[in-house]
């Protein structure tokens, strides 16, 4: 974990509206070079909108986008890309029928010679593609192989290697592990760490805390278009992350639903308790939510533990009054 320095990419109080829909409200997050920022959120939390805002597809309606110490306003993803903000989309990263080396350089082909004889420097492209991929630890058999013959994890990995090669300083990965099996997801996680070690700031979007936790340096949790919390790894365990991802209210609702369905049980009471603990903590955290370098969140107030003690008292809800 390098640089406790200034964030490379820093968005402050960003809001985005689509007609009457508030897709993002007052969202702040940052990403430092050589760190992995995990952006977690369930479906509909606003992840996609936030990614598209970060990558220059959307312009925020409110708030500030700071990159490399300067406020930016992008009118196209190309502008963001030129500054080194590269985005790898989940299923739109590669062209299956095209060979690996052609994919690798698509859109930024190396050329040699003069017009009208300017041509694609095929030899350089093949060589470089293979070298860059093996630098990331990706072992390809043949750069002429169509990308469609690679596995999903390998495809994502090639896309990551490509972004790194083309000078990505911030790499935004949109659910790179979502459609992958356990082993394949592991492959991608490895390359995320590789990219981080090469000094790239990685923003890793996922709804799977089990994928996020091993590679992340800090975890931004998005819920209903708002930042629910931003936790450094030192302050949060995997189990807590999982809990928070699911969301307190939802857990509580689920518990009640289960109760109605199968009657009061130990499991449902457990769930209610967990939900309440979470709610209490959420109150404490959102209070502390502030721009700039986050205060080293002195772990949730002891009140968070309180409701866990009296079992079964579903109504007693400790409010966030401190």
């Amino acid at each position, binding site marked *: 974990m390098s640089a406790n320095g200034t964030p490379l990419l820093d968005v402050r109080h960003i809001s985005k509206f689509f007609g009457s829909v508030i897709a993002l409200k007052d969202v702040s997050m940052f990403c430092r070079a050589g760190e992995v920022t995990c952006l977690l959120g369930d479906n509909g939390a606003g992840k996609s909108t936030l990614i598209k805002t970060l990558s220059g597809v959307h312009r925020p309606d409110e708030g500030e986008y700071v990159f490399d110490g300067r406020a930016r306003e992008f009118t196209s993803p*190309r502008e963001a890309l030129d500054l080194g903000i590269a985005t790898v989309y989940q299923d739109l990263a590669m062209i299956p029928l095209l060979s690996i080396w052609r994919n690798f350089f*698509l859109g930024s082909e190396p050329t040699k010679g003069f017009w009208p004889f300017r041509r694609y420097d095929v030899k350089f492209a093949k060589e470089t593609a293979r070298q860059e991929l093996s630098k990331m630890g990706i072992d390809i058999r043949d750069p002429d192989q169509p990308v469609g013959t690679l596995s999903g994890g390998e495809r994502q990995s090639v896309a990551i290697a490509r972004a790194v090669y083309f000078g990505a300083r911030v790499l935004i990965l949109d659910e790179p592990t979502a459609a992958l099996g356990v082993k394949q997801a592991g492959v991608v996680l490895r390359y995320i760490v590789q990219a981080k070690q090469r000094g790239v700031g990685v923003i890793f979007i996922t709804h799977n805390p089990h994928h996020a936790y091993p590679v992340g340096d800090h975890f931004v949790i998005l819920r209903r278009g708002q930042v629910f919390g931003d936790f450094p790894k030192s302050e949060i365990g995997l189990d807590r992350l999982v809990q928070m991802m699911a969301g307190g209210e939802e857990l509580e609702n689920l518990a009640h639903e289960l109760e109605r369905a199968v009657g009061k049980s130990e499991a449902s009471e457990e769930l209610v308790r967990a939900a309440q603990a979470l709610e209490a903590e959420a109150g404490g955290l959102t209070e502390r939510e502030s721009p700039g370098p986050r205060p080293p969140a002195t772990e949730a107030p002891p009140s968070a533990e309180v409701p866990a003690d009296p079992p079964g008292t579903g109504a007693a809800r400790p409010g966030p009054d401190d």
Partner: protein
Amino acid sequence: MATTAVPPVSAPADERVRRKSLGARLLSRPEIGALIALVLVWVFFAIVAHQHNFISWATTASVLNTAAPLGIIAVAVALLMIAGEFDLSVGSIIGFAGMSIMLLVTPSIGGGFGWPLVPALIVSLVLSLLIGAFNGTVVLATKLPSFIVTLGTLFVFRGLTIAITRLKTSRTQLGGLDQISGFSIARKLFGSNLTLFGSQFSVAILWWLVLTIIATWILLRTRAGNWIFGTGGAVDAARNVGVPTRRVKVALFMTTAFAAWLVAVIEAVQFTGADVLRGENQEFQAIIAAVVGGCLLTGGYGSAIGASLGALIFALVQQGIVVTGVDADWFQVFIGGILLGAVMFNNFIRRRAALR
């Protein structure tokens, strides 16, 4: 182990690349199906029609002369198809371009404009390119499938050609191009024949050859080629990495229009005139040639050489049937069968190549 740096690549990696045999390499080319089909069709006619002098320079010349105009169109159509779009209006553009030349050069007594040939050629070229750009722009602006858009313009341009020609000259055929100043140059460029082995080879074959070579070079060895494959393969992914997909598509619609103009000029010079119906059905023949040549209908895959081979197969069947003396009614049956066979074969090969 996940985080340790990986040793740099060295020579062994190089060797593994060469492990792929020549056979596998050939099989992974899109045009291999067309090449095999070509050989099969040729052998078939060589056997069936051997007493009709099928294996002769005269037959070869007539096959190539028939294939050339179709090949020119098919190569352009293949490029567009690789980029993921169709142009069904090429046939109409042939009619339009030919007729626009004739209208411009026909003396005012005959209802024309009385221009010399060279400016007429240039103006009809510009008009054809504009039509191509129009096709492309409408497809992009409406986001409708190009199949539908150009199916519409197929009729629009044909209808316009017929209507305007009839309105101006009250005829549907115009001749007398050889009386126009500038014809001798045009004849050298577009209408001359080379006598080889006692047979007449049309200069159109050279145009076809040159276009195929240029198209292949563009596809495989230039940025534009990479963009064409990318645009057809996955348009959003290509756009995400900075490929100007809209520009690629419009340029390729203009390329098919250019090819149509070239064929119109070649035919107008050859026949010293034009007919409003010229080029009818050429759009389907060109698509057949491109598909037989290994182009995927869904885009992203194909070859210009394949399309040329497809045109050659088409001409071979056409001439083979003529030479054999079989009733020409069977021609369509034959062509349709070859199309289906070639497509199935291509699919089979592609799956093999992918699994290799």
